[in-house]
């Protein structure tokens, strides 16, 4: 049976493929994403993101360029405050309960390592915007496996 709607949709599909193809570098990035899996680590999932979960009113009230994100696994939480200044991002974090650890801030092109202090706090220098994930590595003598967070876009 001739379906004019299907026909038109197929034509639109060809048009989109022609005018807005997925950039080849991005397809490669999606393939490469597989290499970032850390199968030995526990995954701390994103449980709160002020940009998505806060109501509009508090979003408007909150300071500009500031975002709060929380990750959790088991009894551990990692709260992160992301501050934007122009194209730069700064990350300040708090691990609860506090533990001494290193935190790798991973993004597709590089990894930056920062230390967690005795109160469970850490902070980064300026980071580029884009996808990022944290890997918490307990210091020698610390308990438990590494923990990685969900990827978010800084």
């Amino acid at each position: 049976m001739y379906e004019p709607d299907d026909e038109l949709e197929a034509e639109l599909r060809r048009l989109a493929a022609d005018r807005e193809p997925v950039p080849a570098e991005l397809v490669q990035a999606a393939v490469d994403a597989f290499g970032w899996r850390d199968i030995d680590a526990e995954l701390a999932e994103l449980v709160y993101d002020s940009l998505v979960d806060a109501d509009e009113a508090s979003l408007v009230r909150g300071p500009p360029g500031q975002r709060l994100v929380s990750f959790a696994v088991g009894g551990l939480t990692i709260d992160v405050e992301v501050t934007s200044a122009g194209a730069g991002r700064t990350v300040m974090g708090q691990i609860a309960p506090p533990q001494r650890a290193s935190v790798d801030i991973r993004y597709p092109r590089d990894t930056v390592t920062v230390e967690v202090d005795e109160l469970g706090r850490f902070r980064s220098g300026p980071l580029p915007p884009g996808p990022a994930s944290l890997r918490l590595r307990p210091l020698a003598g610390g308990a438990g496996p590494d923990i990685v967070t969900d990827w978010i876009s800084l």
Partner: protein
Amino acid sequence: MSPDDTGKLVRGAADGDEVAWRGLVARFSNLVWAVARAHRLGNADAADVYQTTWLRLAEHIGRIEQPDRVGAWLATAARRECLQSLRMSAKSSPTDDMDRLDITPAVGNPTEEAVLAAETEREDAARAAAMWRAFERLSGRCRELLRILMASPPPSYAEVAAALELPLGSIGPTRARCLQRLREEMAGIRDGLSPSS
């Protein structure tokens, strides 16, 4: 590709099979991109959404509860990233930092050369240009829905519903209505009734 095959790819990738992962990228890359495009993000933000969504799937690949529905999972994840990105832009003044991604913005019209070639090709190109213009002129809801439907291979309605947080049952009727709107816009452009034609 049947849902069975998709589920198999997810389970394969969860077991560390990179070929299976590539299969998932081949199947759903365009859908994730379509979600970003439907939300009208700039190039740099669309690239971030796309990349973050795939990185997130890689990390979750062993915990996908319904492997045969991973397309809807991706669409939901991409939608969430889009909303986050839009709110971030609304909150801070956006900086156009496209350079950092080495993404070449989509410029020009690949069919322009064809216009100079044969007459048939000219007509095809004119129709394509008119269709694109008509598409861009649609209202937000229709534009979003059609942009998702334009993903290749064609997405399932479950994936479309996930990408836009719409009830599954509304997709078919809305699609019919929006395609009709598109025809009307195209007719308007063709007849020169439209101010910007």
